[in-house]
């Protein structure tokens, strides 16, 4: 099926068109044309949908060379979902990029290259090609993060470059070990070979899987490999932040799922569960302490990925569906939040939550979109965050780690009351004014950059409306959506990883909006309001400043890498 290869080649063709755009007079026209391949990819994915839903997996060997020598691309339910995510969010980001009118064809060249890299990562069956895809993604991400050439952006990009190059070396080391043992780079053949070998005899494979997990973990940014993410996502150009937080970190997570499934590394699940819960909790503490709107959102990305990881680590009947649905929903609402926050920052020129001018009156539609995103991430019914958090609750099923996730939900609610400053027009009076004065007087641990106010454009409304509606739709129709996810995922090899019941029915709850469940969301909201009130008191703000300053240094993080490798490898011998 040549449509599989087109899914990878089309974005490259778009990048090529943008490259030509740099050289000719019709630069704006070619910038627009360079993004048209996204539509083609969308159409191809829609055309493949019925077959993929039936459990078909299209494999395509590049150049007609069969595997082990050649490189195969596979489009199955898993690849289809990941591709849909990439295409959908990229299209939205392209609209937002056109809206600000600042980006020319060089930007679209790098953007389409990033899309192509992500497509390579999700569709390839070959682990070295996956490495190449990760590098294409990383190099284009470095350029995009620093694209506005602000001091913070350049520094953030450099930090990301240092850390992710270190991380990818671990990945490459894992690839080397696997090639040494299996004599092939094809994941499919490795899966067949390792299925016949007893676990105990694969000692170097355990090390290889650990190295791959660390390498990918740096890109997925779970703790303690997360330190590059807040800066990279906060200081990147606004549409790019949406793409990075929305898709990029999920792509690497999906790659990790694939690798864990191929080597049946079920022994990692407890470790992943606890890392996920700890990541979710710690990241939300840091998020609450932030005063830079986009940094706060970036910490929430780490926190929500913690949720996804914890759900996946639970290895219950639901966990794969729960992890996937939260990853998808997070992609929708986080890119929405980043786009609106970016527009607000652009319109007022300030990123500091206490200086930003609320956009509620000037751009009511954007403000409305933001409220939808905030309610989704805080898990308020009937938005999609509520639905996927329900699935996660059932997947974890009273596991002790669930307590951490519950506290995280409280923190998430509190911090989104804090961010609502960027939309709600309010006049500080009396004690509120005092606090605001105190906060503006207190120096933040990080310099909060200021830029010239500018219009956010009209086109930004398209992605905001579309993403907002999708957030609502996936929340209201949570049951059909999660059934669809489950049926797309179950025929793929990943289904074997989670202990699905014999019938293959992943036990999706019959209803997502029952009265008891709605009542269950109430204490979280109330405690969230209380927690927010707590952070606005004077001791609360002092504590927040103190937390904000805790930041591991680069050399400490390198130790974390080695420590993480040992931890992941040791998990096999528990």
């Amino acid at each position, binding site marked *: 099926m*040549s449509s599989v*290869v*087109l899914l990878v*080649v089309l974005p*490259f*063709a778009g*990048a*090529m068109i943008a*490259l*030509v755009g*740099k*050289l000719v007079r019709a630069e704006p026209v070619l910038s627009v044309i360079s993004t048209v391949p996204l539509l083609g990819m969308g159409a191809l994915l829609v055309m493949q949908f019925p077959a993929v839903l039936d459990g078909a997996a299209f494999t*395509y*060997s*590049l*150049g*007609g060379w069969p595997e082990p020598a050649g490189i195969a691309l596979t489009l199955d339910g898993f690849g289809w979902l990941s591709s849909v995510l990439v295409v959908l969010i990229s299209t939205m980001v392209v609209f937002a990029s056109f809206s600000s009118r600042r980006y020319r064809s060089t930007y679209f060249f790098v953007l389409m290259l990033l899309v192509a890299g992500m497509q390579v990562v999700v569709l390839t069956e070959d682990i070295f090609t996956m490495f190449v895809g990760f590098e294409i993604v990383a190099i284009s991400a470095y350029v995009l993060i620093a694209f506005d050439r602000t001091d913070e952006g350049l520094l953030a990009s450099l930090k990301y470059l240092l850390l992710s190059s270190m991380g990818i070396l671990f990945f490459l080391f894992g690839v080397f070990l696997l090639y040494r043992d299996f004599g092939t780079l094809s994941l499919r053949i490795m899966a067949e070979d390792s299925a016949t070998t007893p676990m105990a005899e694969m000692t170097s494979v355990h090390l290889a899987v650990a190295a791959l997990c660390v390498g990918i973990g740096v890109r997925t940014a779970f703790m303690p490999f997360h330190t590059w993410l807040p800066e990279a996502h906060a200081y990147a150009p606004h549409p790019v932040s949406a793409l990075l937080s929305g898709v990029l970190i999920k792509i690497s997570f999906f790659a990790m799922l694939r690798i864990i499934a191929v080597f049946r590394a079920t022994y990692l699940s407890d470790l992943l569960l606890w890392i996920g819960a700890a990541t979710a909790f710690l990241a939300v503490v840091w998020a609450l302490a932030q005063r830079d709107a986009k940094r706060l959102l970036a910490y929430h990305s780490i926190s929500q990925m913690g949720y996804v990881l914890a759900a996946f680590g639970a290895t219950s009947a639901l966990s794969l569906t729960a992890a996937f649905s939260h990853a998808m929903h997070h992609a929708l609402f986080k890119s929405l939040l980043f786009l609106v926050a970016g527009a607000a920052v652009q319109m007022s020129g300030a990123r500091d939550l206490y200086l930003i001018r609320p956009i509620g009156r000037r751009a009511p539609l954007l403000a409305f979109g933001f409220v939808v995103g905030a309610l989704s991430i805080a898990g308020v019914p009937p938005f999609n965050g509520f639905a996927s958090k329900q699935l996660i609750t059932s997947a974890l099923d009273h596991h002790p780690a669930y307590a951490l996730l519950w506290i995280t939900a409280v923190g998430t609610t509190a911090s989104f009351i804090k961010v609502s400053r960027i939309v709600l027009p309010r006049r500080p009076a009396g004690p509120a004014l005092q606090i605001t004065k105190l906060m503006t007087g207190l120096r933040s641990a990080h310099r909060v950059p200021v830029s010239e106010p500018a219009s956010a454009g009209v086109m930004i409304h398209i992605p905001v409306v579309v993403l907002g509606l999708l957030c609502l739709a996936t929340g209201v129709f949570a049951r059909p959506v999660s059934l669809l996810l489950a049926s797309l995922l179950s025929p793929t090899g990943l289904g074997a990883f989670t202990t699905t019941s014999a019938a293959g029915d992943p036990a999706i709850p019959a209803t997502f909006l029952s009265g008891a469940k709605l009542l269950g969301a109430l204490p979280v909201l109330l405690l969230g309001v209380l927690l927010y009130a707590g952070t606005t008191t004077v001791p609360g703000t002092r504590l927040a400043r103190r937390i904000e300053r805790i930041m591991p240094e680069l050399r400490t993080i390198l130790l974390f890498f080695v420590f993480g490798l040992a931890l992941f490898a040791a998990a096999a011998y528990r």
Partner: protein
Amino acid sequence: MRKTDILDVVSRKLAPFMFLFGLYLVSHGDLSPGGGFQGGVVIASGVILLAMAKGSAAAAALLPVRKLAVTEAVAFGLILAVGLAGVLMGAGFLADVLYDGTLLPIVRTPFVFILNLLIGLKVGAGASLICLHLFAQE
């Protein structure tokens, strides 16, 4: 720091041979060690040698930045086109569309030669461009 004439003379004498060796690697990649990427990098290293010894202006006079940029974009497009030609002819992406089933006494594969040539152009132009831009910023 004073620059000696030795560097100047040697680099001017050496650079043409580096270009030639790069072209050799590109054109014989289908028969012997080498290939488009390697040859392209050797060509680019010739450009870099000139740029370091004689200044980036001199190197840009030989290979103008704009022409390099056009070459890179066109080669990129042609690589994609050659790959997609296989799809159009129903043979699959990057399939050898020139192979007619006859085995030649010397195993030259025109298709691989064309691909190597395009990759050599793309890599040579791209790597030279990166360096010329970096030198120009100093």
